[in-house]
């Protein structure tokens, strides 16, 4: 079934456009939300979705192309987000919102820590204490705030793309 894969391109491109034009400018201290990560987390939590890995690869490459952060950081982190989401789908499928919060929390920490270590490896000077206090924690908070509305939108999209299996 090619439709979900084809849909991923405009959805993720639009998400990245919103991310760079709007969401990155809404900062809490020095942190900002990551809409692409939230979409991947919510998409990975949809039980009927079969192409979440492809979405993660595409999102990682797109974000890596736009960002000054090395592309492999986004690719690896987004794959990890989908991996955690698929894992939790099988474990706590009866509480999707709890799963969404968990994936958002873990995914944000994975992405931010991976970015920190990659930039440190590239000799970009930064202190972990500052990064944790001024970037990671505010980013986690913003992502958790956006998690519920993003989950609702992505679930609607999944229901449209997989209409054969309606939730009761």
């Amino acid at each position, binding site marked *: 079934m090619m439709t979900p894969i084809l849909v991923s391109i405009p959805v993720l491109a639009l998400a990245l456009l919103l991310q760079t034009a709007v969401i*990155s400018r809404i900062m809490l201290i020095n942190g900002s939300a990551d809409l692409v990560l939230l979409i991947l987390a919510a998409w990975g939590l949809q039980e009927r979705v079969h192409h979440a890995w492809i979405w993660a690869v595409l999102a990682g490459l797109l974000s890596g192309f*736009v960002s000054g*952060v090395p592309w492999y950081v986004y690719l690896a982190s987004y794959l990890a987000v989908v991996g955690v989401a698929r894992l939790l789908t099988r474990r706590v499928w009866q509480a999707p919102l709890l799963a969404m919060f968990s994936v958002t929390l873990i995914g944000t920490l994975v992405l*931010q820590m991976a970015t920190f270590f990659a930039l440190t490896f590239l000799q*970009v*000077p*930064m202190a972990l204490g500052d990064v944790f206090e001024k*970037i990671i924690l505010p980013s986690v908070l913003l992502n958790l705030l956006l998690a519920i509305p993003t989950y609702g939108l992505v679930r609607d999209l999944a229901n449209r793309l997989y209409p054969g299996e309606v939730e009761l």
Partner: protein
Amino acid sequence: MKSSFPRSLQTIIIILVAIGLVTLALGGYFNPLTYRIGQFTIGIQTWVSSRYMALVDFLTVPRDLASMQEQNSALQAEVARLQTEVIDLQQRVTETNILSALVNFARANPAYTYKAAAVIGQDPSPFRRYVIINTGSNDGIRAGMPVVTDQGLAGQVDAVIADAARVRLVTDPASAVNVRLQASNTDAMLDGSVTGDLTLDMISQDATVQVGDVVLTSGLGGGYPANLLVGQVVSVRKQPTELFQQASLQANVDFNRLEYVLVITNFNPVDITPLLATPGP
């Protein structure tokens, strides 16, 4: 039958009676009577008039209401259109002011050629201080070109595609710019940070650095042209046990509200990396 009074006598009697009535009226003897008659007449007139107006209202108001509703809708649409126009014009005024300032900056620094660009996005990662501009290689933009605003230095083009480019701001943690303190003519290194704060490092211990000192690019290293305004010193940290002084810098450019920038297109950055000493085998 002929009247027993002659006509002239009748006339005289009528005149006398009239004079008498007028005299009585002027004397106020008829006031109660005229008051009652007036009240009665005014009451009737008021009633007739009100009934007439009610009839006129009944016949005309429905037509006026429909007309007024139509007019109201038209006016509301007009107000909405004008409000949109006002917002649009306000935005254009803001843009014109910014562009005008950029043009003034370009005129004041005629040594360079510039390409104006709008800032259309920021880096998705909060770790990096990059912005995306809407001009690219099709407009002659190349990696390494300095980027300024009318307020001073903003950053450097980092990556380019056909119609867009990514600019690394001087506040980025990986950014390092060679600068000069104008007052003391001392060289220093301007470093960005993850928080967006700017720090001056590598300032000689012998140099006298004061709050308010103006900081300009020095041109050393070949990455940026010399004498571009960067900002002002806001605090100085001098420890006798350390090799260099440090200072905090307030940038002239408001990096949170970057809307338009100028790319200096006739400055060719020099990559001096091959000239730097490398540890021997």
